[in-house]
């Protein structure tokens, strides 16, 4: 019961700050551990994390293009992005021509490109590879919770609002899977509610959860916990989104609309620290160029709007965006103007707290491993940098191993 009381009290706190017209809660008040000190005292830098998953295996070579590499120009014909159209970053690499917003972030020193990311013994199955990315473990789901789930368990052993971690979209990635802090998942914020005109019905509904009640089965206990989280967060989430106003021009597509919710939750300081969104359509086995161009356009438009939105609310100073995919694609095209599943690809890390520029090492296009770009950076070094830099958590405790330091975030 104490758990519920603290959530309610927190809700009241937020509501009363809102009523006072205060634009921002102090960082200390936002830190979720404030009510119940964590078992392992740590300094929480208080940064938020936005996870952007590009599903299907994004062709890294078409996002960060090695335009000056002969091997690239030889291997790629229908998907080649030539020197004339690429947004040059230096005399070797450039961004996809649609990534104009990311280009200006690069110019502002707010975009880090981590090159050659993958993991040892790469798996080319979408599903197995995603399990590895989501759990940061070669064992996938057998390892237990997702890496964000473990991060939260480490950082907030007790007492956090249910909307601490939010996925906006239909299916949450396994990274958010958590026995202790299951994520709030919603698609359309207006529809994030249970409807009844009758007070006794609403009250009975709210009382139908109760994870502490004895339940006949694990499944029921879990569902009752979800009902608790839903009824506790429904009003706060909708209110934040409704009250949030921004001049950022979010497009109408589902991806941009999901980032709009992210912008509202972070801008309104709801206690949300991790927001996850997804952009699909990257499994480009045939006629890749047109399809991938369109994906890049949608990605850039969404991220550009989010950046502006966060800048308006001031949350930009405390927010880091991570863009990743389950694998890159093969260097050689497959003959149907597309590419098959590959291995290493760049990750993008975006935001004011980021130490912009190149990180890691570009994989060789001539010394391939089984036709694929070989890993030069274990993606878990990026996770470690974010766990520590954003949340003050121990990377090795969250990930179960020590990974090389990358210096991704500003000190």
């Amino acid at each position, binding site marked *: 019961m104490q758990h519920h009381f603290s959530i309610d009290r927190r809700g009241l706190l937020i509501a009363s700050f809102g009523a006072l017209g205060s634009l921002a809660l102090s960082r200390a008040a936002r830190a979720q551990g404030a009510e119940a000190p964590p078992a392992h005292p740590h300094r929480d830098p208080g940064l938020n994390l936005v996870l952007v998953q590009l599903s299907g295996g994004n062709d890294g070579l078409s996002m960060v293009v090695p335009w000056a590499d002969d091997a690239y120009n030889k291997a790629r014909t229908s998907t080649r992005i030539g020197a004339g159209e690429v947004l040059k970053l230096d005399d070797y690499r450039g961004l996809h021509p649609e990534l104009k917003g990311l280009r200006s972030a690069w110019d502002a020193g707010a975009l880090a490109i981590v090159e050659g990311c993958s993991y040892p013994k790469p798996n080319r199955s979408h599903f197995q590879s995603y399990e590895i990315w989501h759990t940061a473990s070669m064992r996938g789901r057998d390892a237990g919770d997702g890496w964000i789930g473990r991060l939260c368990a480490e950082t907030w052993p007790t007492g956090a609002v249910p909307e601490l971690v939010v996925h906006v979209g239909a299916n949450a990635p396994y990274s958010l899977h958590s026995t202790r802090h299951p994520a709030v*998942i919603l698609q359309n914020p207006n529809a994030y509610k249970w409807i009844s005109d009758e007070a006794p019905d609403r009250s009975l509904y709210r009382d139908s959860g109760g994870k502490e009640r004895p339940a006949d089965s694990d499944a029921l206990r879990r569902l009752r916990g979800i009902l608790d989280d839903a009824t506790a967060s429904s009003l706060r989430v909708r209110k934040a989104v409704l009250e949030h106003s921004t001049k950022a021009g979010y497009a109408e597509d589902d991806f941009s609309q999901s980032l709009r919710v992210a912008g509202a939750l972070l801008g309104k300081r709801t206690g949300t620290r991790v927001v996850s969104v997804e952009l699909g359509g990257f499994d480009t*086995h045939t006629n890749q160029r047109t399809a991938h161009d369109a994906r890049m356009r949608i990605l850039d438009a969404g991220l550009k709007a989010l950046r502006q939105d966060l800048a308006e609310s001031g949350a930009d100073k405390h927010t880091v965006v991570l863009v990743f995919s389950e694998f890159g694609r093969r260097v050689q095209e497959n003959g149907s103007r597309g590419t098959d599943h590959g291995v290493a690809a760049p990750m993008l890390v975006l935001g004011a707290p980021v130490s912009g520029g190149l990180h890691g090492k570009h994989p060789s296009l001539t010394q391939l491993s089984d036709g694929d770009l070989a890993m030069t950076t274990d993606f878990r070094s990026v996770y470690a940098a974010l766990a520590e830099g954003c949340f003050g958590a121990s990377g090795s405790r969250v990930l179960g191993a020590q990974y090389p330091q990358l210096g991704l975030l500003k000190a």
Partner: protein
Amino acid sequence: MILTILLTCLPAGDGPLDKSFQAREAEHLWNRAGFGALPEQIEASVTVGREETVRRLLSIPADEQPFFVERFLDVPREQYKERSEAERNRMNNAARERERKQLQDYTGWWVERMQTADSPLRERMVLFWHGYFTSSVEEVRRANMLIRQNQFFRENALGNFRTILKGMLRDPALLTYLDNDANRKGRPNENLARELMELFTLGLGNYTEKDVKEVARALTGRTVDGQGDYAFDKGAHDDGAKEILGQKGKFNGDDVARILLEQPACSRHVARRLLRWFESVEPAEARVEAYAQVLRDGDWELQPFLARLLNDPAFYSEDVVGARVLSPIEYMVGISRRTGQRVPSPLVASASSMLGMRLFSPPNVKGWEEGTAWITTSTLMQRGNIAGMLLGAVRVDDVFVTSDADMQEMSEGGAAMAPAKKDPPKGAAGAAFTAMKRVVDAGWSPTLNFSARMTRQGSKTDAQIVDAMLSDLLACEAPQDTRERMLSYLAGERVMLGLRDGEFLKGGAPAERVLRRMAHLILSLPEAQLG
């Protein structure tokens, strides 16, 4: 001799006197081999016994007329070439619109089958194969291919896995979805080869990257012609020597099917997928192997597998009953099957899309993720809202837009808020909203009469009414604490109406309204998502 015949006729422990097959077990069978059933169907099954019920479920012939499929893109190429670009665009757009409409009609027809067909097991297996050999309209685009694929599943739903696998390796929708139409000699496309082994036959760890490449070569040339039919392009087929899973030869697609079906991993993979689908708990390895053996012994026939499974005591164990998190389709079709109220199929289909399951549009080649993934903070509340809509307790507009009541709730304890803009929802939710609104605007309204139902069943007291409502609406038994909360809710509402315990059904329309609200609450419960 006579004794043997007698024993065969009256197997011990089965038949009408079978204590191990009561209402709980019969309802479980109808939940898993169908989409739930009316109380009277469950009673009838208990009377005839488990084996007979299973026999009937397996042998009910398909009772429907086949859906007529048109091919709208069949504009003769010569004729098409002569037209101006504007005219061609117009023709293409018109064809696309007809295709979209045809798929929508077919989806409605299919959902109708799920709600009313005499052969629910067949409908359930069609749904299984739809999520197994996935193909999405997003990539395939042509409705007639997807409909013909579904009709193939319908014919073979309870047939033979070898036939299904071979059919799928010639299926225009699947070949398009997994890019095999672009898999050509010297320019292999590995998409189908990889998913064929990972998801359709062997499972990860039972093949190598080299096998993926070789199988891709063997599958070259299997393509789709301009009419949307299967075609073998001899010139595109790589007829060179290959080595697949240790076998060497100039293999083609049929050889691939043969080699894959020979692998013990294949029967285990299929058995595991079927066990998961029907039991919803991870099967033990020994059990997977036992059922894989049933598939092998039966030469891939599915009937013996299903007959054994549905008669297996383990299928009725504590761990299995009530452990399934209902998919959106199961949840909604279940409401219809358990109450006997048919819901307009477009409403079921669009609501299912909103809850994460758009038929003909699985999220990826692995199909929908079953189990707890269906229920999120958002879909749990939405399921309740949709149930409320089906019961007339929730207005369709309120589901998607911020209502005045919402505004008031949000303003409580704080400054008054500016009135909300009543924007219709965008994206996927917008499409579902439009479809649902169309059904409701066309004059559909719920016809359920709970008071009549309770009267018929002889339920009078609060306790009798609560028990009957919970038992009729839920797929499995409600926990005691839920029953107690419902009881005090009903008592509270009864007192408000000035009625005594035992007289509630004399309350007329207001009492019926309370029962509908109660049904809305029951179907919103975590318990209602399990079956």
